[in-house]
């Protein structure tokens, strides 16, 4: 198929799949239903019906939802050319990085091998960590990173190892991994022609803007890192939170001052936010809006496909939060907060330790 045919196919696929995305009121409607009904509707009955403990069932549900997302990802990349495919696969590799972090935490805290294995996601071949079995058998973090350095993840592993050798801190290690992952996405985007760029810039820019604000606030005011250290851990966006702006923002001394100094539309969007959770909720809504716009008005298939995957991931993870809340018998208010703040649960520095 020629380029135009590929694009037409991809656009049709994305438009078809986009009908599966949640409408604004979907989650509210789903929240009124029982876990069994949700399971039946989203083909999760097998995961929920097993005789396993709640934690294992919750894990099975999460795995099943991730399988759904990654199956759709594989369908979408079929008609794509190499650079487009690389970008989408690299985006999907944050699950492999979640596995890498699980392995690292497991080795650092000398966890039981079964516990580590239970917390690894099952991923398709083209999204798995290379030599995952061999990494699993590594005796310590350094050995693990050295093994990973020999393969396609060398870009991430080398930086992580250097940081780990100099700073034996899990935080610095995971931050280095996340930073390299995002830098890789920006690098992938640089390969696209100007024709693709406006939509992709908008989407990846929104993704990076959201993370830059969250990380800046978290590192600077929750972890009390210095402005230098905070800036070094951030990944400048090509849109609003660019390098110069981040340099100015990290030097501010209070949460409110940073929010006040943010460029539009974040000034209005985050006005009157007092805590990180509220900021995260509003930024999720912002990213959702940007991705929906790209789906509706985007001209290039790859940008629309990525926008769809980002939204689909948000939806599935919100659904997971809902089912998990039901399994744990949490109060409705707590589930509501979890849904609003859930994006990709395993995404970039937001996942709970294994």
């Amino acid at each position, binding site marked *: 198929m020629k380029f135009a045919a590929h694009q037409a196919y991809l656009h049709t696929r994305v438009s078809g799949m986009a009908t599966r995305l949640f409408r604004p009121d979907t989650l509210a409607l789903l929240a009124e239903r029982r876990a069994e009904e949700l399971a039946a509707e989203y083909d999760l009955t097998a995961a929920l019906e097993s005789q396993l403990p709640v934690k294992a069932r919750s894990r099975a549900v999460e795995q099943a939802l991730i399988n759904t997302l990654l199956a759709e990802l594989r369908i979408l990349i079929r008609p794509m050319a190499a650079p487009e495919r690389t970008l989408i696969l690299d985006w999907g590799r944050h699950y492999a990085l979640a596995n890498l972090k699980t392995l690292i935490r497991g080795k650092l805290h000398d966890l039981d091998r079964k516990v580590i294995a239970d917390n690894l996601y099952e991923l398709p071949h083209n999204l798995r960590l290379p030599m995952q079995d061999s990494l699993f058998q590594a005796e310590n973090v350094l050995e693990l990173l050295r093994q990973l350095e020999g393969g396609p993840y060398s870009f991430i592993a*080398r930086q992580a190892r250097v*940081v780990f050798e100099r*700073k034996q801190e899990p935080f610095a290690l995971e931050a280095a991994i996340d930073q390299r992952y995002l830098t890789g996405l920006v690098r992938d985007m640089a390969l696209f022609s100007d024709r693709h760029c406006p939509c992709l810039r908008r989407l990846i820019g929104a993704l990076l803007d959201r993370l830059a604000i969250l990380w800046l606030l978290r590192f600077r005011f929750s972890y009390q890192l210095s402005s230098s250290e905070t800036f070094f851990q951030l990944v400048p966006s090509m849109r609003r939170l660019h390098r110069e702006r981040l340099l100015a923002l990290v030097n501010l001394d209070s949460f409110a001052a940073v929010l006040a100094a943010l460029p539009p539309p974040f000034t209005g969007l985050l006005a009157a936010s007092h805590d990180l959770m509220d900021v995260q909720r509003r930024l999720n809504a912002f990213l959702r809006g940007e991705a929906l716009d790209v789906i509706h008005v985007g001209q290039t298939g790859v940008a629309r496909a990525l926008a769809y995957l980002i939204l689909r991931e948000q939806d599935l993870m919100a659904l997971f939060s809902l089912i998990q809340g039901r399994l744990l018998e949490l109060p409705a208010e707590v589930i509501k907060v979890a849904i609003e703040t859930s994006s990709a649960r395993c995404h970039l520095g937001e996942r709970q330790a294994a």
Partner: protein
Amino acid sequence: MLRPTPMKHVRLLVIDEDLPRASLTLAELASFHADDRPPEEEGFAGQPSVAYRDIWRQASSRLEKITRLIPLPPEERNPSPRVIPEEELTATNNWLGSLWETCSRYEEEFRAIDDEDRLIREQQSALSNFEGLGIDLGMLRSKTRFLDFYVGLVPYANVRQLEGAVGLADHLLFQYMVTGDDAHVVIVGPSGAQGAQLESVLRSAGFRHLPIPPELDHEPQVMRAELARRREGAAAQREALRQRLRDWSADLIGQLASSREVLRLAEPLVQLDSAIRGVGPLARLAGWVPAAAVSALEARLRQTLSLPFDLSSRDPRPEERPLVPTISTRNRLLAPFALLVQQYGIPRYGEIDPTPLFAASFLLMFGTMFGDVGQGAVIAGLAWYFRARLGRFYLFGVLAGFSSITFGFLFGSVFGFEHWLPALWMPPLHDPLLMLSLALGWGVFFITMACILATYNRLVIGNWAGAFFGQHGLVNLIFYLALAWGGFNLSQGEAFGQGPLLLVVLSLGVLAWHGWGHLEAPVGEKVLVVFIETLETIVGYISNTLSFLRVAAFSLNHAALALAIFTLAEMMGPLGHGLTLILGNVFMIVLEGGIVMIQVLRLEFYEGFARYFAGDGHAFNPLRLGPAHERESLP
């Protein structure tokens, strides 16, 4: 030879304790192919060998890492089989774990020396760079009262971000050189409270200090010699460390080899892991065994297992046929042809193994298309000469060469000369029409045989509808033979014939009726689809038969090419004549030989296999003992 080796499905129930012994026995006999499906019996949900498997995997991983530092002699081919209990496996794993701890320290020491060596090389680069600057480098060497200096290396990818970060701590970053993935930088800024903050950022960025020696500002030659001496020192250190490692490991090699043997003997149970399920103390494993080997398996289990067991066997059920493994031919002469068949696919259990037919028809067509005593001898000779490199595949070259020689005698051709030997039959160019007619006849025979095999393969698995009405089934065959009959009549100058016409119309009618019944579409669409399919059947069989004309065409082409080379040679002087003949023959062997082989494979795969060979079977891969590399290479 064409029929598959009959297989039985066996189910073995053993007591947990006897699992390692049972798996070892199965591996020794090398006749058990594990069946990974969940058991049909209720209750077998446990996985009794999971702990054993995990220990084995960890131990194997450790052994592999250790042997990167301590090479071991080749494995014994046939170690005496003995059961490895979990306790022994655990002890081996623990011993390997403690050994790996020491080994990893050696590994780190090697890495430290490599890092040191790399740093010295960077210093040598920096020295060349600093020499031309003409500044007092002593100023950069240490902190002053007012200024801090940091000279060192940082991953190039971090420079831009680090520049911004140090700027926030009121420092400036200068990049003065890039080597590989690293950038050489100088960071300078006011001394004071920002120091600790900066150190933390530098560690996050992977910054490595690059000391500036005192000699650098006034005696670069001395410094250069010093750096060279330090590199020699690093090399000596590396050699000394290697020697220390050799001395330390000398006494361990025997025990390491024993550990390797323990792991190899324990491996069968690990390989069976996915096929083992348990309930209470009972373990169940299932698999496929050649029917002729079942009684031997039972007898051997009776000898080796100390606790009661139950072995039951049954024929494969019809729905299980796609899962039953197929044993490929063991015939040495057919082995290279089996490799080519496997490029297309593995015969499904019950299907005719096409290897012997493929070998015979391949040799026949290759010889016909490339018949020459001299060139055939060269092909056979080269295949023989390079037999070590070609492995089992050399026989393919030898047989193809002999086929070419045989047809060379029939055609009376030696390196293209047709007067050196009397033709046992005739040179192809003497009667091209006869050659083309024979090729067409061969095509009809080939396609007929393919249809018969397709029908048989479907009948064997109980697919009656497919056998009669499916593609290349019995009705198709009747149509094709009637078409060939009519075509033959036409070639004899007669009419197509009522008999063939009736059969063609009837068979096409049956096919159309069958196709109509299987379509779920509006009437208009049905008419269109059935019409196109019927047309495709007619055109397909005619074009496929004509495809075999290439067999004659290439034999004629071979003779014509030889003729062209002789004509060119005649135009040369004595030296040019000889050279043209030699180069012409080389050209024919390499290029024409290659093209003929591709054409024959195309006929075999497309006109033959595509009709009767599903190729979606599984190779019989029994559990067996032996070094890993040998297990992988076995069929």
